[in-house]
């Protein structure tokens, strides 16, 4: 029943049409859901958040390491996070669209490290922390990412707030 010439319609049908009209007249921003997901990702959800304690470029007043980067930006920057009982240093190296990520956990302890894109589904990379506390992601995704640390002793995973690669 979509006859607009005045044929009787049920209240619900008419309201459905009003609702549908408004979806056309006032569509949400195209990135509405992405904005929600980014905001949720920034919240402390199922994991404990690590604290960003140092970021070389932010300290130098150039640019925060947590901000978006140009797609072809080249350079190396470092971040340091503090968790319960350990510290993580990250070094991000980017050359054009290629990026790699090196990390050190101190004191060294066996952990699985996961690197995931905040907005894109799937594509979670995994690495193990070595005896010396090192881990690496030779090919890191670009864009907003977060890193999650899972210890072998269990407990809540520890995650960094989103940072840009």
């Amino acid at each position: 029943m979509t006859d607009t010439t005045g044929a009787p319609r049920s209240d619900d049908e008419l309201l459905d049409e009003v609702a549908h009209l408004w979806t056309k007249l006032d569509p949400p921003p195209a990135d509405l859901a992405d904005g929600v997901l980014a905001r949720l990702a920034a919240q402390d959800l199922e994991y404990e958040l690590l604290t960003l304690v140092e970021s070389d470029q932010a300290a130098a007043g150039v640019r925060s390491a947590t901000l978006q980067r140009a797609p072809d930006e080249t350079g190396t920057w470092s971040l340091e996070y503090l968790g319960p009982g350990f510290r993580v240093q990250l070094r991000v190296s980017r050359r054009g669209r290629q990026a790699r990520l090196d990390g050190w956990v101190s004191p060294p302890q066996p952990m699985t490290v996961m690197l995931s894109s905040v907005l894109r589904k799937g594509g979670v990379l995994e690495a193990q922390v070595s005896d010396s506390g090192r881990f690496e992601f030779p090919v890191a995704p670009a864009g907003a990412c977060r890193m999650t640390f899972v210890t072998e002793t269990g407990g809540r995973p520890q995650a960094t707030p989103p940072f840009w690669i």
Partner: protein
Amino acid sequence: MSEVPGSTASTGSGAPWAAAAAAFTRWREGEGEGLEDLVRLLSPVLWQVVRATGLDRERAEDVVQTTWIALVDHADSIASPQAISAWLCTSARREAWRAGRHASRERPVEDQVLAYGLPDHESPEEQVILEDEAEALRRALGKLPERCQKLLRIVAAGPRPNYQDVASTLDMPVGSIGPTRGRCLDKLRHELTLAGGIR
């Protein structure tokens, strides 16, 4: 409105409520993608719910985000997966109402009234080219008293009924929402009939 099958903001067969309940269940069972699916399904609905209260676009986006954060914080209190859409829409409406009260201290009253009206100067809707049916509906809605326009937009957005929220948003007694809704819909039908007669 048959030109777009599966229109999202409806109570009809195309409504996302069932899919939302399923996504919510998956999330509660530990599947992270369930939440993402839920966000993508219902954020456009929440947008309509919030905008219907007269909030500007920027504040509306913020309210939608806040609503999702509230869900993550209070997911345990939601009785059943079927209740998820209603819970989100109710939270969004209340949050919008709260944000709107706050905003109304910052800008003149006329602005707010205009923001409800048709057409709305801050939205792209005047440029929207509609098919004949939708255009006829828009014209008919535009002829209704402003209060009816507001009420119908609010009632139409999200799952029905939501009289309690509508009542607080429009500052009307709950008992009068049903009859007022009925009168507004009758006026709308009347306008549509008149328009059909002219064509």
